[in-house]
């Protein structure tokens, strides 16, 4: 069905509050939500605040909630919505203005995660490293992350319970997985996972996986393997018994 006009509602406001404002946008073939929002900015509301960069789902800037669902505006055809839709800011983060939210917390979290750490031998070797494709493919999935923070937005631990101090969120479980499973990384981040990263807060509802525009299997490929690693180290009853008898590997220290 051809629609000539879109009834686009955009949340306008700031930290003090706001409301959905209606705009009529002429529809062009193949239009995505970001096109419609930028049309409003150029023609009806020059001060409409919105983040965007690449317009090709590669930078993860234009995250928003479209009819309440976290998506990238540049990747969402309006044709999926019939004649009307609403766009609001991500709800897990404080609003700065209109569709722009304060995502600075994520950048702080990233600083807390110890970076890639190869062995001294690898670091000082004069030879280029050898790694097999199948060994790096696993972390490549995680490195596809464009940091749109939609997974953080949808995660109920962060969104509904606002436990930002206790759980670093799916994005950073993916980040930690990308480091832990890197064939050349030797650092042990299990204490971090158990402590500050708070992986125990995740109860694998897979909402994050569902909204990931890069189709990263956040829960299955990153979080669950990390959880299993934690269980082996901290909660395995056999190992626990061996430890009490003074045998077997010690728990990684927090």
């Amino acid at each position: 069905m051809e629609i000539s006009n879109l009834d686009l509602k955009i949340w306008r406001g700031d930290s003090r509050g706001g409301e959905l404002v209606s705009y009529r946008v002429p529809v062009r073939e193949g239009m995505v939500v970001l096109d419609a929002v930028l049309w409003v900015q150029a023609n009806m509301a020059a001060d409409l605040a919105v983040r965007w960069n690449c317009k090709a789902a590669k930078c993860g800037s234009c995250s928003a909630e479209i009819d309440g669902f976290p998506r990238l505006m540049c990747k969402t055809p309006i044709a999926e919505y019939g004649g009307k839709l609403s766009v609001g800011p991500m709800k897990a983060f404080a609003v700065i203005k209109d569709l722009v939210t304060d995502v600075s917390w994520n950048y702080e979290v990233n600083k807390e995660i110890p970076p890639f750490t190869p062995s001294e031998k690898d670091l000082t070797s004069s030879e280029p490293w050898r790694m097999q494709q199948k060994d790096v493919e696993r972390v490549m999935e995680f490195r596809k992350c464009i940091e749109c923070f939609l997974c953080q937005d949808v995660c109920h631990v962060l969104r509904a319970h606002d436990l930002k101090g206790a759980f670093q969120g799916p994005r950073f479980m993916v980040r930690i997985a990308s480091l832990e499973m890197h064939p050349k990384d030797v650092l042990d981040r299990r204490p971090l996972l158990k402590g500050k990263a708070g992986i125990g807060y995740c109860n694998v509802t897979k909402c994050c996986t569902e909204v990931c525009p890069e189709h990263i299997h956040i829960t299955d490929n990153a979080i669950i393997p990390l959880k299993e690693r934690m269980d082996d180290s901290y909660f395995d009853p056999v190992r626990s018994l061996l430890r009490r008898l003074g045998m077997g590997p010690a728990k990684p220290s927090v």
Partner: protein
Amino acid sequence: MDRLSSGTYETVETEVLVLGAGGAGLRAAVAAAEAGASVLVVCKSLLGKAHTVMAEGGVAAAMHNVAYQDSWEVHFADTMKGGKLINDWQMAEIHAKESPDRVLELERWGAVFDRTWQGRIHQRPFGAHTYPRLAHVGDRTGLELIRTLQDRAVHQSGVEVHMEVTVFKLLKAEGRVAGALAYRRSDGSLILYRCGALVLASGGAGKMYRVTSNSWESTGDGTALAYDAGAQLRDMEMVQFHPTGMVWPAGVRGILVTEGVRGEGGVLRNKEGERFMERYDRDRMELSSRDVVARAINTEVLAGRGTPHGGAFLDITHRKPDFIKSKLPSMYEQFLKLANVDITKQPMEVAPTIHYAMGGVRVDAETGASTVPGLYAAGEVASGLHGANRLGGNSLSDLLVFGKRAGEAAAAAAKGTHLAETALDADQVEPAIADLMAPLARPAGENPYTLQAELQDVMTVHAPIVRDEPGLRAGLEKILELQVRIARCGTGGSDTLAFNPGWHTAHDLRSMLVNAEALLRAALERKESRGAHARSDFPKTDDQLTAVNYVVEKTANGMQVKAEPRPPMPDYLAEAVQRSYARYTPEEIE
């Protein structure tokens, strides 16, 4: 408007100030911090969103992991030939020699590249590179590069980042660049940076065209700021049309389709099904240099052999679906989602899109120093390496090689300065703030988006793939008119300082207009066709002009362009360019 009382700004000091957080800016920041300097990176968007993230195909480095015949000499020769020999040959030499180390270093910082069967970094073929040379990660190499550098930078002591801050004026003290004025996009508050040295790494100016692969950020701020501070610009007539941008649907027009598609075997056809590159470059076909392929598609379309939406077909369906999905995953996704085209089954429709500025700030090859003391430039904002046409993959290596060098040189320069003892030259700050704030005082003035659209129309019509004197002259007239009109530019209606893109655009326009004027003036001066600069009134390359670069600078009489001779290459480099290299025939297909 009480909030606008000028003179209210916060002062922030750092030894090295870096403008831009793409590959060049982050690499410069890491290098400067490693050299012991305190570093502050300022970027217009959030960290990690810079244009580098859009780079898809790979990073060019003669590591000879796939073709044993490759060497820095061949990479050097390819770069010079691709740039039609007006490159700064010293930069091209440094670049070819140092790229492999910069790539291997990234790997040691955690970057994960695709591998050969022996476990080395894999390298893919690319346009006008004699041998497979591009280290890559599928078709998201830029993301890998920026994320690696971002993590390296934020975990390095001495590096601080100010996100969503726009610099609008460079400040000088005793003839040196010693600071900058900036505003925070979120609330319009002002910052005065004091620094010992400043590195421009602010990218290109693609946004002055309508159809571009560039984001809103690419407004040529760096070149405009440098020009304003008295620095020379070079090769401003050289802007690259990438041959393959999306053409349909309208909303995605211009979005990049990686050269990697052709690198992995994609072929170009016109609507008659003809593989037309045979007529333009029989040897290299689709993997000819970008200027040639872009003009070929343009010619086919003008001759009525274009696709329904005015482009060419790019077809990779002869490759297996699994191969396409693993080598070009984001292209697969992009076309499926945005154009409803399954590239494993259907051809893509592509047409040229403005992609890259070869020209920019004139820099010293070894240090990235501009012609103004204290001011450095690296990456797209700088000029010289790419000459008249950039080869694919040479941009990411450019960022790494010259970002590092500029960062180190800036750190060394900053060490010798004494911020506290030097006063900024008088009368720079207040007028600049007044200019920035002026649109807020006349919100109902000319609409900045309308002016921007007009500017884009002027450049699209008057500085297209093939140019001529009447067109360029008419374009220049219109740009000069627009420069007068921006004095009346408002914000599009609102006088708020809080995240007001209308106001931000009013300022960005000033930068774009400087770039546009420089492009048109330099293009008028270069009376020949060379690389990306094609003139229908001077269709041939003039050998006399091989030794000439056009330099733009600000004078008391406004913008001036002068021809400047370049010293000849030393014999060993000239010989490297002239030598013929064995053709590459793949022994194995991975």
